[in-house]
């Protein structure tokens, strides 16, 4: 339990205080009060991260944490888009009028714009950080990225298989067998795992690489574009849900998008001054 709670602290906090915190828990003993204290401490450390050390290292950690937070927020926001889309329009809910449809479909171009910024940021980081590290033999950077890469291939193959089955046996589709339903469920579980590993892998690799601020400056600027897209996406989805009738699934999707956008905005507001600094 204690190890799990300690693992809930942000990486920068764990790097600096993790060993001391674990030693103090050993000395004072554990119990429900200590569990609660660590849980609230971890939440506080995420909400208001602390960066100590020499000024240059603090700036580096700030920018690195900003990139990681924006990436995780983006993954959450992207996940919310199809959820809200399906919940409001497939089949259309009674309140899904023209305005709601426009709002929901208007999310997709925003998603593409944000995705382009995210992809640009990731490519620059891969070019400036990942490739040089791999050339110098740092294979440990690949390890956190591998699960998402493998799952991406498996899920793509699975989706292609389902699509082929649908095309080959259209009459069977409305009454699928239990085995087929189980396969689809397994695909969905894999998709959720892909989301989780996809969100967590790149930040872990970035943390291991410890890139200099100069290498992260352009990705951080592009990440600000991701944050703007995320904010627009959250506004569109929340408005669509408010206008279209607040079903539980659509509301949850919109709430996730809003939370992701707020998190990304807070992080970006703190990161941009660090990027500007010479």
């Amino acid at each position: 339990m204690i190890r799990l709670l300690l693992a809930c602290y942000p990486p920068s906090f764990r790097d600096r205080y993790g060993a001391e915190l674990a030693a103090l828990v050993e000395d004072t003993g554990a119990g429900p009060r200590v569990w609660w204290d660590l849980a609230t401490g971890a939440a506080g450390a995420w909400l208001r991260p602390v960066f100590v050390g020499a000024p240059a290292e603090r700036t580096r950690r700030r920018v690195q944490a900003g990139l990681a937070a924006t990436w995780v927020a983006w993954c959450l926001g992207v996940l919310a888009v199809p959820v809200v889309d399906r919940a409001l329009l497939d089949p259309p809910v009674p309140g899904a009028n023209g305005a709601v449809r426009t709002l929901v479909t208007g999310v997709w171009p925003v998603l593409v714009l944000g995705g382009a910024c995210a992809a640009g940021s990731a490519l620059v980081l891969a070019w400036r950080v990942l490739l040089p590290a791999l050339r110098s033999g740092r294979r440990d950077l690949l390890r956190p990225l591998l699960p998402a890469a493998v799952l991406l291939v498996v899920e793509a193959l699975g989706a292609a298989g389902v699509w082929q089955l649908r095309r080959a046996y259209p009459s069977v589709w409305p009454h699928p067998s239990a085995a087929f339903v189980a396969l689809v469920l397994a695909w969905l579980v894999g998709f959720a795992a892909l989301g989780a590993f996809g969100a967590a892998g790149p930040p872990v690799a970035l943390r291991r690489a410890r890139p200099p601020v100069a290498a992260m400056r352009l990705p951080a600027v592009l990440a600000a574009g991701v944050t703007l897209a995320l904010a627009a996406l959250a506004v569109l989805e929340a408005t669509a849900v408010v206008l279209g009738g607040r079903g539980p699934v659509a509301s949850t999707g919109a709430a996730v998008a809003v939370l992701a956008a707020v998190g990304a905005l807070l992080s970006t507001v703190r990161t941009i001054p660090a990027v500007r600094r010479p």
Partner: protein
Amino acid sequence: MVRRADQLTWGNPPLLILGSLAGGPKHGYAIVQDVAEQAGITMGPGTLYGALSRLEERGLVEALPGDERRRPYRLTAEGAAALSERLADMSRFARTGLARLSAAHP
């Protein structure tokens, strides 16, 4: 989480930590013990290191070289000045409160 011995407590974690370090460098467990003895307040580990990290970020305390698991901390000059100022305020408040009490309830 700060566990209080009574409801009219006066301490907040950063102040308690600065007050404890005023007596010399200490590591986390020593700070917890000292605060419990001096103020009757038990600080949880998450509370202690949350406050300690902010104090270190603001340059009010600094870590000394030592065992990575039990690193001692000490007050910086800025930390000593901040603590001195706050204690002077508290001292004025205490003197005024005591004077009023003795006047109203001799």
